Structure formats: C-alpha cells, structure tokens
C-alpha cells in the first residue's frame, strides 16, 4: 500500500508503463496538466464528433464544472474547482481512452464494471478524489491555461496547470480491479447480518 511510503508523485502526460504499474490502493499527487470535462464536454466530443487543437494523449480528465472569475485580459481565475459524481459520464469512458488516448480519469463515486473493462483493455486508471473538498483542490490549481468551447460555460474543456494535486487514490486500475465493486459486494454480503441484528426476516426471493 502506498500509505506506507507516502504518495507517488507523477508528472503529465502519463506514459503507458506508469499507468500499467498503478494499483488499487496507491495514493498519488500530480504535477502538470489536468483537463476539466463534464457532461456537455463529453457529449460534444463523442455524440457530436468534435475535436480540439490540443494533444490529449496520456492526459488526465477531471470530472468538474468550475466556478471561475473572468479577468480583464479575458483569461479566467478559479473561484471553486471541485469534482462531480462520475457515474453520469460513465458511457464515455471507453471513448475517452480509445479515441482520445486519455490515460486517467479523476472523479468521485467511481464508474461501472463496463468502464472497469475499458480500463483493463485500454490501459487506463480511475483516480478518486475526496468529493466535496473543493477548497483544497482549488488551491492546488496554479493557473487556468486554456479554455476550449467557451459556449458550454461552465462545462467547457478546461486546461488546468496543477501542483501537488491530490491526494488521489487509485480505485480502478488497468488489471480490472475496482474498489467500488469490492466495497459494494462486501456491503451486499453484510446486509444479511445487518437484517438479523435489526430483527428483519427476509424470505428467499
């Protein structure tokens, strides 16, 4: 477990050997570039088939929709950059990896077994951030370097320059392991004992 040795520090873009070496239970911090995306961004990429003039290979997507303040020079400063529930964007995971070459998705709440299979087949990982702790994340963003598709505000494609971004926890890895599946199965298995403790009789269905 990475907790014994402290978090691994990674730069961007991620190379395929690094991604393949990451395992559920590892703790990471990232320095470099992270791309902010949300529902509307991914709909434009994959349902509308549009692309941006930027190399996203080995890149990291963050499920977010930030609050920003426009600067006089037409740039943006972050007001609050947090992380949204990933599952709404589950159907885009395979396309992010296969078509754009994205190496990692940062979000909260995890993704489905279908996404887990995509991470295994395309050598990708899901990194969980602590949801609801946006003030911490916001301070780790050094600069908003670029914005594509501003008409989708706030669901544009955001290019964030980050330092000490994390901690992030590997919760779905390229071997197909998923913390969400493990914890979910464990909770289901423990339900029977919880029912008994509360005097709930359950007939076999």
């Amino acid at each position: 477990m990475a907790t014994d040795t402290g978090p691994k520090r990674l730069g961007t873009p991620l190379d395929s050997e690094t991604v393949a070496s990451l395992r559920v239970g590892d703790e990471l911090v990232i320095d470099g570039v992270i791309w902010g995306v949300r529902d509307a961004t991914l709909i434009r990429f994959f349902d509308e088939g549009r692309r941006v003039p930027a190399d996203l290979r080995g890149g990291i997507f963050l499920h977010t929709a930030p609050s920003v303040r426009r600067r006089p020079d037409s740039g943006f400063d972050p007001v609050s950059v947090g992380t949204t529930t990933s599952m709404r964007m589950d159907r885009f995971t395979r396309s992010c990896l296969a078509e754009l070459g994205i190496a990692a998705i940062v979000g909260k709440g995890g993704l489905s077994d279908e996404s887990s299979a995509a991470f295994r087949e395309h050598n990708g990982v899901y990194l969980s951030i602590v949801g609801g702790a946006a003030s911490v994340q916001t301070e780790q963003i050094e600069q908003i370097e670029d914005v594509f598709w501003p008409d989708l505000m706030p669901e544009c494609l955001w290019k964030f320059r980050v330092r000490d971004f994390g901690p992030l926890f590997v919760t779905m890895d390229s071997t197909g392991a998923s913390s969400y599946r493990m914890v979910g199965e464990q909770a289901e298995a423990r339900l029977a004992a919880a029912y008994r403790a509360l005097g709930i009789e359950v007939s076999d269905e």
Partner: protein
Amino acid sequence: MTSSTTELTTTTSAATLYEDLAEISSALYKKALTDLPPDVRGAVSAAQNRESGLARRRLDVMVNAIGTSDRTGIIVCQDTGICVFFVRIGTEFAVNGARLIAALRDGIARATVRYSLRSSIVHPLTRENDQSNTGRGVPVVHVDFVDGADNLDILLLPKGSGSENMSFLKMLTPADGQAGIKKFVLDSVVAAGPKPCPPTVVGIGLGGTADECAALAKRATLRPIGEPHPEPEIAELEAGLLEAINQLGVGPQGLGGVTTSFAVHAEYAYTHISMNPVAVNIQCWRGERARATIHADGRVEYGY
C-alpha cells in the same frame, strides 16, 4: 485567490426589513457554503480519529478542506446546491410573508453575482439556466408559525445534488411494519453507496402522505449531529439503524471503512390506517446549513 468576506447585517428595523432580509439571505448562502456547522466539524474530527489507513487519509482531506475554507473564504464544495429555506415566523413578529419570500429569493440571486457562485439551477425540460441560482419554485421555502414567539428564524440548506439524487420513497404496507421500514433504509444506503459523499447523515421520514413523508426526511437531516429524537421509540430506531449501517463497511467516500454515516435522524407524522410510507433523504459529509434569527428589537443573530 482573493477571499470574499461576508458583510453581515447585524441589525434591522421595520423601515428596512425587506432590504435587510435580502442581505441576510445573501449572507446565509455564503456562510452555509464556507463555514461548516460545529456539530459537523466534531463528527468529521471524531471519524478521523476512528478510521485508519486510506479511510483516514480521506478524512484528513475533509479536515483540510474545512480549514482551507476558514482561511481563504473559498466555498468548501463546488456544488452551490439547490436552496431550501425553513422559516419559522413568530406570531408576534410583524412580517409580510409574500415580501419575505421575495426577499429570500432576491438574496440568493445577489449572492450568486457577488461571490461568483456557480448557478446550478435550470428549467427541468429546457435545462435553461438564468445564472441566478433561482427559478420557478426555487428557492424552496417552507414556512411554519410559532405561537407567541416574537422572532423570525430563517434556516438555509443549500442542498448538494450528489446527495439529493440519492433520495428514496416507498409506500410500504402496514403489514411490512417496522421491519419493512428498517430494511428499506438499509437497502437505500447500500444502493446509494459512494454517490452521496459519505460519511452521511441519513434522514428518514415516517408517515404522513407521500409528499409530507419526503419533506420530513429532509427536515430530519437538519437536526444537529449527536441530538437524538426526544421520543425514546424514535431515538431507539435511529440508534439501531446507525449501528447497522456502520457495519456495512461502505465507509468514507464509499471506499471502505467503519464510518458510513455520522447519524440517522427520523421525523414522523401520523398516517392513514392503510398506509406505511417511508422516505430517505441523505446529506453529504459537509452538512451545510446556516441560520439567522431576527429578534423583536432588530438584532440579527447568526448560527447553524
């Protein structure tokens, strides 16, 4: 990053009441999003001490987020929520209810511009967003009257969508009894899994009609963590369910651990002989809420 300090309106008068109420509403929105209640801080801290390994690391980040917001004025979570007010009007406090509700709504729109808050509120079909965090029916305002009281009490809950999306209602039968209620609550917590940002407060509504039952479940989440229901039968139900939930191992952020929920709170209303409704409304780990009490002499007191 510049922190936006909140100017608090600390006194009011009959002449300026509705303008002051709009400013109080604006201040409550900013306060709720940046300054977590003391009971939540205590519960996060206690969970941090209880957990180990990666679960503890996740609690460390929550503690860090609370401190970062205290220091910088950055809102704790990016989700500005859907605003729900719970207003208690003393019968001896002179106020025009329609103007009160209009002022509360105006305050939310002001705060959205003033503090560059993300507008999270859209039309349900067209998804149109007028960038004010308000719209038809939003903020939601619940009004109660307190006989003999001479003050006005305003509690704001800016409810995050991650946890609000994990809301459940079931019209059980009387024959399902208490066991059916308990099973439904446990099943709901397992179904919600990581999505409502655990550790959570699980609000339970019992009885009433379908709509009243759901409203009771939300109201239950507002009670400070650590305060059991005053009636022993309800308090016992809360304690038993909390213990069972925390044995499921869902844990902080749904990634394993012993703290899935900080508390289970239930509120009830009488119901029909042929009904047994139960609702679950979940609050995320931050439990954001802010309160202002306007006294008869014009003093405005802030709390949670």
